[in-house]
């Protein structure tokens, strides 16, 4: 509530430094990218305006579509699977009172503090057909025929990258859920038990509704991670074999900085941004609608 005499611009003065930095390094570059997307430009010589050509080209470019589809497939590994596993593990251990929960929590969170480049290098060794423990284990178990050149296999390369995503996001999701579940009133579970609810019914009707906010946050963060993944692809596969693991961020990088197609890359970046915004908005809207319906 504004008191008489208080100056309306006063809060802006405090916000100004942050807004300036945000504007200069975030907002203006976004506008610039948007502008470039309407030009054919190699990044160096004068740009040629081409209208919507870059966008039309992207929508007809099999490699762009393949990359977008790969991003979609990765949402299973980066988002849905970790959340499912996180919920499972949380409901199993959170209320069990087992010793070691804290250590477990720290352990599963560890991948999150590592740089993804380091993660990628380690997994590259794990997967290595030449000296990787994964194939050695399979051969040791007499399952040598299952050994594969994981990252170079047309069918398995994307899932192989996806597994790393699951391993990486699982800890983040689990810690989020573990924190959330502690807010749920124990008396709700007690009441459910007295009414004869099974473990599944307790999970379905007490745990799940109680964790809705956490699930929303986890979904948004992990979906974004699935769409902006770059480092794993760059270190592990360079989008290969063929274009089997090509993703949008890597394709944009290749186009802008290796293939001198800045305008086209900008158009793809705008499309990627729109996809991410749309998915995030959808999730948040649904959550808000559900919250209102419940209220």
């Amino acid at each position: 509530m504004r008191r008489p005499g208080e100056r309306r611009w006063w809060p802006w003065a405090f916000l100004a430094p942050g807004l300036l930095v945000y504007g200069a390094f975030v907002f203006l570059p976004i506008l610039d990218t948007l502008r470039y997307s309407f030009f054919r430009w190699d990044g160096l010589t004068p740009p040629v305006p081409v209208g919507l050509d870059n966008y039309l080209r992207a929508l007809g470019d099999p490699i762009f579509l393949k990359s977008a589809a790969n991003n979609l497939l990765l949402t299973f590994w980066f988002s849905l699977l970790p959340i499912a596993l996180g919920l499972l593990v949380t409901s199993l251990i959170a209320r069990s009172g087992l010793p070691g929960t804290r250590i477990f929590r720290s352990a599963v969170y560890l991948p999150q503090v590592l740089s993804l480049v380091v993660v990628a290098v380690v997994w590259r060794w794990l997967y290595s057909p030449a000296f990787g423990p994964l194939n050695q284990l399979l051969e040791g178990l007499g399952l040598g025929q299952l050994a594969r050149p994981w990252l170079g296999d047309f069918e398995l390369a994307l899932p192989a990258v996806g597994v790393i995503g699951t391993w990486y996001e699982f800890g983040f999701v689990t810690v989020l859920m573990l924190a959330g579940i502690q807010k749920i009133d124990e008396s709700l579970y007690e009441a459910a038990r007295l009414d004869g609810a099974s473990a599944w019914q307790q999970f379905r009707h007490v745990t799940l509704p109680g964790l809705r906010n956490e699930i929303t946050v986890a979904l948004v963060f992990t979906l974004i991670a699935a769409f902006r993944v770059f480092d794993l692809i760059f270190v592990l596969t360079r989008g290969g074999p063929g274009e089997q693991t090509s993703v949008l961020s890597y394709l944009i990088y290749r186009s802008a900085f290796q293939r001198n197609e800045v305008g086209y890359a900008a158009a793809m970046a705008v499309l990627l941004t729109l996809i991410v915004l749309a998915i995030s908005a959808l999730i948040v809207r649904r959550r808000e609608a559900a919250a209102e319906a419940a209220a």
Partner: protein
Amino acid sequence: MAAAPRSTVVIVLIGALVATACGFGASGSPTPGSPSVTPQGSPPSGSPSAAPATLLVWDQEVRNAITPVLDQLNDEFEAAHPGVTIERQSKSFEDLKATVKLALQDANGPDVTQINQGRPDMGAAVQAGSLLALDDYAARYGWDKRWGPAVNARNSFSDDGKQFGTGSLYGASLTGEIVGLFYNKEKLTALGLQPPATFAEFEQQLAMIKGKGEVPIAFGNTGGDAIQIYGSILETLVDRAWLDDFIFGRGGRSFDTPETRLAAEKLLEFSEKGYFTRGYEGISYDDAWKLFAGGKGVYFWTGSWIGGDLVQTAGEKFGFLRTPPQQAGGSVLTIGGVGLPFAIRKTSTKADLAAEYIDWVTGDRAMELLAKAGVLPSHGAPGAEGTGALQNEMAAAFAEANSKDEVGHYIDWAGPTLYDAITAGLAKVLAKRQTSGDFVKAIDADYQAFLKTLE
């Protein structure tokens, strides 16, 4: 609803990050009409400036063997030029490629930088008017005698950047490069074999090595390195005129030829016969050469850039030969030439000093230090003899290819999208998801589309 606003902020931030990935260098939006600074009003005078100055130099010589050589050369240059400071910034090849073209448009960009040969990099920079033509300096320092015309052609473009291999000189190179077969001497001797004289003999050896349970060729393809093997095989099959025309974009050549198909089929045949490291599809180049250095593999098909590190880790165990010709004693093209050249930013105000620096880092002293470090020098010089057998073999192969005018090209130089297209295409050929015919047709379509943009 605590989550919503926070995640909205995050969404916007992420969106911003994604979007700005392509907005790098936004402040320098193209200004074609801006007057270019012309530091070279007069031809070089011959008196190096002794005034205090800092020369910003970008290079990509980050490998263990060579990086101290650059440091030492810089120190010696500074010692000989009181007041001059060399500010060295080393980047990986990939990083340099991604940033150098924009940096050259910046008034605070590097005065001297390495830049990859070929149309996508040097060609694009010349087209943008951001590199200084070095013809006057070449005459002054004798660079036309230091390297032959074939080598200098690779560092040359027409002033509009559209004609490759002709016009003005834009760079001078430090290292020599030749792509061929490294081999494990002990293993080859133990198998009773000599370095092969023909490609057919080479193939017989591979079959025999495989039969004896050894890995014939150490190889890893997650980075797309099949392009080097494919290019090497192809260049044993084609003649100089076709290759030069294709690379320099002359004479309306097509990539859809019997030879380009045959090379792809040969690559697939090698894979199917098990001549490559098992699981090569999932092995990286770095891991592959470490396997080879560790004794897993008889041959390793790559460039001399790995030689310095091989010399330093296990020098005497390895030998080097050019990919053998189809006919005994016949002519054969070998991919190679010179390493990334040093070039001068057109707007640099220290062009004279920069040229003197380039003359120094590509001069006789540099060659001597390179040779001592086990790296292949770009030209012969007194005291630049190799320190070991492997190095002498690389140097001999390089000298032979140069003297016979048999130095071939990296095939992806022909157009900006070819590297991606060829590496992805070869992976599909190797996985039998694309026929050799479809592969060469797809590459040709890419190439023809690029030629159109030059018209």
